[in-house]
């Protein structure tokens, strides 16, 4: 493995205000391979690290369209081709009766693509991740906020980046071993 031994530098903050300000300055300073971690969703935070568009909605739209076509197509095929049955003299292609299953499958496929699409885009499940090597990081699911500059960033330089993070006034700075 020729991965660097250091995954990045992690700065800890106490409040959402502090980390959003810090993330904005880090992004403004030209760091791009950065990530921020918080105990609850903070909309300003992902904007601050330059993450403006997630593609979840597109995935759900595609899933929904596929579900809709599957639902209607299935019923059309069953009622007209595979197993045509005369029910009270109704036409084989009795589309008003097919609306409900079409609707339900649209919802079902959209929901499945929302959940599994979100997980896949997030790269979850993921059994190992370097940030968990930092002991204090376990507070991220309670009350602390963390900002990480990855060592893969072009501007990353151990001394300079550490000095820069120090200037943001964090509670502590730690190396993240990979």
């Amino acid at each position, binding site marked *: 493995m020729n991965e660097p031994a250091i995954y990045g530098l992690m700065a800890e903050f106490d409040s959402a205000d502090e980390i959003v300000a810090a993330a904005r300055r880090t992004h403004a300073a030209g760091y791009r391979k950065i990530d921020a971690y918080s105990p609850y969703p903070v909309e300003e935070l*992902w904007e601050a690290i330059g993450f403006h568009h997630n593609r979840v909605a597109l995935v759900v739209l595609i899933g929904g369209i596929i579900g809709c076509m599957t639902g209607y197509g299935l019923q059309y095929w069953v009622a007209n081709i595979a197993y045509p049955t005369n029910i009270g003299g109704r036409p084989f292609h009795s589309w008003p009766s097919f609306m409900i299953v079409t609707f339900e499958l649209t919802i079902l496929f959209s*929901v499945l693509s929302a959940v599994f699409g979100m997980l896949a885009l997030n790269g*979850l499940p993921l059994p190992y991740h370097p940030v968990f090597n930092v002991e204090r990081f376990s507070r991220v*699911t309670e009350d602390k906020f963390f900002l990480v500059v990855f060592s893969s960033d072009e501007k990353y330089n151990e001394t300079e980046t550490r000095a820069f993070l120090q200037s943001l006034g964090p509670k502590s700075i730690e190396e993240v071993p990979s």
Partner: protein
Amino acid sequence: MTQLLEEVETGRKRAPVIEPGHSFSTVTAKISDVVLKRPLSIGWLAGVMFCFGFVNLLLLAVGYLFIKGTGIWGITIPIGWGFAIVNFVWWIGIGHAGTLISAILMLLRQTWRNSINRFAEAMTLFAVACAGLFPLIHTGRPWVAYWMFPYPNTMGVWPQFRSPLIWDVFAVSTYATTSLLFWFVGLIPDLATLRDRATNIWVKRAYGALAMGWRGSARHWSRYETAYLLLAGLATPLVLSVHTVVSFDFAVGIVPGWHTTIFPPYFVAGAIYSGFAMVLMLAIPIRSIYGLKDFITERHLENSAKVMLATGLIVGYGYAMEAFMGWYGGNRYDAFLLWNRLHGPYATWYYSLLICNIFIPQVLWIRKFRTQPVLLFLVSTVVLVGMWLERFIIVVVSLHRDFLNSSWGMYYPTKWDWFTYTGTLGLFLFCMFFFMRILPSISIFEMRTLLPESKVKAE
């Protein structure tokens, strides 16, 4: 701000959504300690064992049913539906409040929902599980129930998609899947919290596996929030469609008392009505036993009671319209149905229904009944009984005397009907007991967002 204005206008102070003095740490600790630190109590064990008795009763009833067939129930012709369908509709209706709280109230930005959505969703799941059991065992041959799904088979037979019963299969299975996923997605960040707080290595690993490596990354949160919002947006029309489809099981048939266009909205309102009653019946003991009164405040009780009052009035309108159309519609069979409800052999049941669902819940107009937990608990019980009676009236009274009086009959539930019904009640509570001790019953990360320090101040 709006709350402040309202307080100034009305001159009385409303209970807060979350009691003051909490921080991220105390919210996290208070909710997760119920799962991780609280010792096993005698009360919990006794409750579990009591419910486990009923679970065994259910197993016995279903086991005997599999040996003997549906003849052990009270169903006959003309009343082929009986308890199985009454209980199916009742249970699935209860489930609806969970989705309403988690999805519709989220879209409406009612943040007070954050402290009750988790266990309301769990309630939905268990209620849907109990509901699903009934049509399954009512088919008589549940081991071939998968024939209802479209799959390529050697018989060359396919489902009949013009039938409301097939619509029901799709609606209920989509609803169960969506409820499960919605609930699980909401749990992921809290499972990570439990993972990080657990001290026992095996407990830590179990929650860790379920949390799937959640680390609270801002990018993840961004996608998570979009997905969660979309799920809420998808679950909202879904929940309305599910009880609508359930009502189609009746309304598409030509039986007097079933064949009406008011059924879909009236069923949905009734579902939410009974569901909120169940939410209150669970929330009231949970908040006092597990010391969660800071998070499930009087405000939550009062708001839920108001929803109950509103949906109860819609249900009352439904009854009034049914009676009005029976009288005004000029159809002799509908007119007879009305007469039969008021004076027939099941008249006592109908009057009990009116008392439970329409008259007694009017006490909720009085503020004391909305905020006093014991009184509210009693009203909720009455509503649940009333909504069960409503389904009984709809299923049995409509079927037992229809067009030809030579084919009239009576329905008497047998002990096996009652065993199955009380058995599902036991199963439901059994699952709730375990849920309370295994998973955080209040959404921790959403509670964090309710704290004032969670907001980022504008630059």
